């Protein structure tokens, strides 16, 4: 399991891994970034032609779930900590971004000058909101990370769960951003293109971190803190750093969420939401970014899919009438039951959590990644072919 099992230390592994499939060279990096944006825009165009508003909405929710799961994986999977308060960071980002747009969006846009076309001004304002959201969440991440770096596994879980509850309580009492009544009037700036581009950005950044010296250090912290410390790794700093980066992306996701739903409430970001994200990471495999992404692609739209199925069952049974039970009546009954009791979704989640731990604790993917590198590893590599990484 350990990435160090076949290599003497993090240095050589990092040095050898870096060129393999990494985005070396800065022109190429910008090229990749531009390509991501173009693809996202193109996908947005195509999707808005084919899909209705509801389907677009579900896609956006799924994209946000991808960002949340992938970013939590940096802390829970790669660094081996256990955070149960990821929704708290999302809340910080959502409220920071939304407050900026709603309260200061217009004054700020004036600086662009009156000749600026409206879409450009809106985009610039949204970019600023995203940055502020991410940085606010990252700042909170540092504050939470500092004590958290000194806590062990299960205590850390409770402390971070508490952090999420604290954020909720503070927001419930913050009258300036709506308090108990929630915070509305947020413009719907989040389009599918934004979600896709930022999800891709999140995955690329996390992957590059994982493949860098820093990523190796985080893995070392996960495998054995004492050994990592003996290697000269500043364990506390890396833990705080992981929290900050992970919180940054959760903040981005929160800002996207706020500008998608146009209305946010502290209850959108409670303990249950945090557990939902943890479930996704656990299911995908703690340590596998692609695993988290895949799990988020399944679990993200699951509530909406179940809702659709339940609605369909209700319509179908209304159409056939109470007496005539045409078609697969057991399925229909299941759908109606689901309609009456949405808590089945959570029963599924909890069974997934327990079942995964009992049957396949490493998650579907373990800490492997699905990538071109996986295929490349099967082929003989010139020079470094014998350095497997023990997976």
């Amino acid at each position: 399991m350990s990435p160090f099992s076949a290599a003497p230390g993090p240095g050589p592994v990092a040095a050898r891994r870096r060129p393999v499939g990494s985005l070396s060279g800065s022109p190429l990096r910008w090229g990749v970034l531009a390509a991501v944006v173009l693809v996202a825009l193109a996908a947005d165009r195509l999707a808005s032609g084919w899909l209705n508003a509801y389907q677009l909405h579900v896609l956006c929710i799924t994209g946000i779930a991808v960002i949340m799961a992938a970013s939590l994986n940096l802390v829970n999977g790669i660094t081996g900590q256990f955070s149960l308060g990821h929704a708290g960071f999302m809340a910080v980002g959502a409220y920071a971004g939304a407050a900026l747009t709603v309260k200061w969006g217009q004054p700020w846009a004036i600086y662009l000058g009156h000749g600026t076309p409206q879409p450009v001004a809106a985009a610039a304002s949204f970019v600023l909101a995203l940055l502020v959201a991410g940085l606010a969440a990252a700042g909170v991440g540092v504050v939470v990370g500092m004590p958290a770096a000194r806590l062990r596994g299960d205590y850390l879980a409770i402390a971070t769960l508490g952090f999420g509850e604290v954020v909720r309580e503070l927001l419930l009492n913050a009258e300036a951003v709506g308090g108990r009544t929630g915070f509305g009037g947020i413009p719907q700036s989040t389009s599918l293109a934004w979600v896709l581009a930022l999800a891709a950005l999140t995955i690329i950044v996390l992957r590059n971190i994982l493949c860098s010296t820093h990523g190796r250090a985080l893995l070392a912290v996960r495998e054995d803190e004492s050994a990592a410390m003996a290697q000269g790794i500043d364990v506390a700093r890396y833990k705080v750093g992981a929290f900050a980066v992970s919180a940054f992306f959760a903040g981005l996701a929160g800002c996207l969420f706020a500008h998608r739903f146009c209305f946010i409430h502290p209850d959108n970001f409670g303990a249950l939401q945090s557990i939902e994200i943890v479930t996704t990471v656990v299911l995908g495999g703690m340590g596998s970014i692609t695993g988290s992404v895949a799990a988020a692609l399944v679990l993200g739209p699951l509530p909406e899919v179940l809702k659709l199925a339940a609605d369909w069952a209700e319509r179908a049974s209304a159409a056939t009438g109470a007496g005539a039970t045409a078609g697969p009546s057991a399925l229909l009954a299941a759908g109606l039951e689901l309609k009456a009791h949405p808590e089945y979704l959570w029963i599924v989640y909890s069974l997934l959590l327990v079942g995964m731990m009992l049957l396949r604790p490493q998650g579907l993917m373990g800490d492997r990644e699905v990538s071109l590198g996986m295929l490349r590893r099967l082929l003989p590599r010139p020079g470094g072919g014998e350095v497997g990484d023990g997976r």
Partner: protein
Amino acid sequence: MHGGLAQQVVEQAFNALFNGSVWALIAVGYSMVYGVLKLINFAHGEVFMVGAFVGYLAVVELHWPWMAGLGLAMVACPLLALLIERAAYRPLRAAPRLAALITAIGVSLLLQNLAIRIFSAEPKGYPRLLSDSALRLVIIGTAIACTVALHEVVHRTQVGTAIRAVSHDREAAALMGINVNRIVAIAFVLGSAAAGVAGVLYGMYYNVEPLMGFRPGLYAFVAAVLGGIGSVRGAAVGGLALGILLVAASSIAIPLGGEAALELSKYKTTITFLVLTAALLFRPAGLLGRGQVQKL
């Protein structure tokens, strides 16, 4: 308004004692299980909730006297806890501790949502069997009786010696011929019986609902850590300390100038978790605990 100051102080002290008693009763369960398994039993708050529902069913559906409901909960909760331990925790005893923690979260979520499915999320009230102050006295008395009894069991009986041995060093205890599985089961039974009692009494005082275990569970956990997790006395002291702290904090309002004031009573969760963080950082063994050297 100031005439009844003494009366107010007495009333608030009563409140602190009452809240602290409930938390202490739940905290004992966290402490017992943590002592023998070094596992935070996340589902403990839900065992408390199930206890409240069992008592509710006995009193409302079966028309039993509330004492009998209490007894039924004291039987049902240990059975549930044993089932959880057997099905969800024991298979993972050799696994990394995070695996058991995740399972515990899963079990907690499962119990909550099964309860919602069976009883709906609507809060339900027990019939009014005792006056509020009588009930509070009963809760305080029960908490004292339970913690004293458990403390005696742990410190004066042979089973208690075995529990302490397992909590000190599980492998060495097993080598000395102690049946570790049996001791772990006993720890679960004792802790969950206390939680069942707390659930019924708490439900009689407030309401019964599927999510009722979450918050008291968290507060009780903080109480257990504050007092020193792993010891019965620590749970009692921690519960009481947290009760006093929150009641004291609730009466404070920091003036912000003009009409505005920062009422601390609105920030109980924040205060509780600041206490938890401070306790974990500065006094990880708790108010009563002795420091332990972390071995590699």
